[in-house]
């Protein structure tokens, strides 16, 4: 008990000592392997700005909880000074009036601008010619694989990549072979318990068929419904044939892969640091990460951007705002380190650097940047947004074989159009 009190007391002292400098209250939702990297960056920043700016960072639960907290804190004027945000959710945020505009003047102060970012990324933070966030990265999902297991089963090609990444049949064969080899519990680990997460995979598979969620404000028009059904069918087939883990939540998915119980895993690039760190400690097998397999017509991978945004509902002094801009600018310019978190830095000056190009496993999956697809630009989209919400409700039963893909699609269609 005394120890707890001592720690509590020191925590109090720490916050009061920090008040000497301009304190920037920072919220993020980066709780994975990338969260560790971000904490490192915050520490580096604080060190470099000692006595001037101090970031007081907090990591909240990703997804609905995070965005619920943001929404209510802005509504009651208790918002942080800066927060991470998903670019996909910016249209919704603008509609809700949650974000402050990043003005031309701000961009100048930061020493950044349109020319520093790829068009698609710049477009992601823009609405009606105004910008609402400073892009940090793009973060697609990738296929992680256990080289040891795959090699043993003879499923690695000459480049050390899994075989059968070019077609549905090929990939199914690889999964089946892993299953038959019986060296793992699951050929593939997927976050099948969390519909929010599976949105990324399913949307990727739709993209591989050029499917669209929303066409001119209408949902799943024409054969798009069929394409969604196709995507769901693939995943359900994997479940039915025992090829992927069922009802697996996020931490369990990572745990299944890292403990060697699943040979492959579909997950975000942000888990790269987890693998790197474990491998360094000698607790992990040889591993790799590649672009998602092409199940349908052509490669496509869902991607989103982390951006920094300044919430409304927070009366900021001039000095504070300057400090916030400095934080965003610094983070963007130092995002090479962020690439070690697996993400692809948004700042094109960084991605042009040789050091970046030599980075592994990033370079292995960097090919996918050409094949990235994004959420539709609508206030209904975005992480934990209404579309997410509706669709994810039906993904879990479908992916785990409780519901037919056809039924799921018609339910999704009904609810989406009901909004």
């Amino acid at each position: 008990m005394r120890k707890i009190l001592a720690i509590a007391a020191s925590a109090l002292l720490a916050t009061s000592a920090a008040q000497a400098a301009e304190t920037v209250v920072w919220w993020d939702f980066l709780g994975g392997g990338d969260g560790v990297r971000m904490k490192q960056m915050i520490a580096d920043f604080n060190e470099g700005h000692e006595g001037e700016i101090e970031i007081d960072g907090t990591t909240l639960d990703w997804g609905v909880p995070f965005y619920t907290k943001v929404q209510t804190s802005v509504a009651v004027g208790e918002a942080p000074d800066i927060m991470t945000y998903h670019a996909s959710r910016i249209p919704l945020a603008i509609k809700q009036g949650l974000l402050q505009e990043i003005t031309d003047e701000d961009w100048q102060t930061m020493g950044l601008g349109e020319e520093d970012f790829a068009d698609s990324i710049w477009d992601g933070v823009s609405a009606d010619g105004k910008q609402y966030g400073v892009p940090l990265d793009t973060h697609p999902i990738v296929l992680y694989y256990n080289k040891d297991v795959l090699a043993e089963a003879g499923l690695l090609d000459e480049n050390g990549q899994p075989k059968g990444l070019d077609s549905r049949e090929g990939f199914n064969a690889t999964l089946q072979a892993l299953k038959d080899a019986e060296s793992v519990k699951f050929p593939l680990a997927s976050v099948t318990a969390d519909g929010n997460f599976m949105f990324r995979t399913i949307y990727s598979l739709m993209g591989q068929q050029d499917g669209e969620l929303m066409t001119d404000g209408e949902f799943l028009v024409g054969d798009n419904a069929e394409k969604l059904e196709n995507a769901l069918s693939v995943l359900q087939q994997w479940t039915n044939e025992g090829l992927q883990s069922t009802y697996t939540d996020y931490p369990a998915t990572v745990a299944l892969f890292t403990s060697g119980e699943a040979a492959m895993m579909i997950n975000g690039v942000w888990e790269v640091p987890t693998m790197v760190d474990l491998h360094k400690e000698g607790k992990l097998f040889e591993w790799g990460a590649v672009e998602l397999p092409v199940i349908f017509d052509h490669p496509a991978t869902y991607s989103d951007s982390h951006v920094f945004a300044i919430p409304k509902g927070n009366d900021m002094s001039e000095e504070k705002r300057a400090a916030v801009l400095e934080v965003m600018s610094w983070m963007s310019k130092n995002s090479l380190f962020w690439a070690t978190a697996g993400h692809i830095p948004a700042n094109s000056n960084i991605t042009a650097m040789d050091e970046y190009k030599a980075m592994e496993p990033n370079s292995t999956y960097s090919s996918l940047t050409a094949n990235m697809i994004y959420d539709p630009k609508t206030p209904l989209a975005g992480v934990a947004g209404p579309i997410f919400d509706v669709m994810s409700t039906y993904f879990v039963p479908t992916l785990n074989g409780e519901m037919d893909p056809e039924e799921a699609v018609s339910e999704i269609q009904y609810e989406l159009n009901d909004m």
Partner: protein
Amino acid sequence: MTPTTIKRINWVGGIFTVFTVICAILWAFPIYWGIISSIKPEDEVIRPYIELWPETLTFEHYWFALTETQIGTWYINSIVTAVGVTVLTVSTSLFAGYAISQLRFPGRTALWWLILASFMVPTQVLIVNHFVLMADLKMLNSWAGIILPQLIHPVIIIVYKQFFDQVPKDFREAAAMDNASEWDILFKIYIPMNWGVTTALSIVIFIWAWNAFLWPFLAVTKTEMMTITVGITQVFDAFGVYYARQLSAAVLAGFPVALAYLLFQRRVTQAITLSAGIKG
């Protein structure tokens, strides 16, 4: 145990006793399992077989929770708000219960009906309005904002009223003969006489307030203002394999109330039966 009771326990009774004890152990097993898991390394925690005792015993998760998270701050928030709820609920209920039981004043019946009516209203339906109200008062993210809406505990007033009703009026008269003022009667006679009830009620209200989830969860948007019960579910890293770490935080959150219960078992029992309207 007296010799006669030993004699009376036949073998059926013996089996029954053993059965009950086994049930009790199974009942509490998840608690044991949570504690044990929290002192295993993360990779041991996810082993695909059952180990009732850690192979490697480690307190690293506790160390992590205590040093790398805001759990210390949350402890302080939980203590302050739980104590605040307890003191305010007990004192206002005690005063009101005393007034209704012992004093005659206009509006007494109306007040009593209000209290009985509030008995029926679930505070959960008021979350939206509480949130708006606390936002208007600029009390969100403050201790006061966490405490205030938790002060609706009509049952405490009812318990106090019943207790004061039971005090023979002789005491009041004896005190009057002793030149005691109305305040003396309250503070020197009635309150000390019912000190046991007050302690018991305070302990359970403290436990309830410590365990409160919904309102503190809504009223706080800043992590440094969270109570421990909210903090451990909201701020912990959702991504990655941290089962043991999460469990260690849970153990830390449950520790104070478990301790309070083990120390004041009889009072807790008394207060629970009181709060349900059964005389202890």
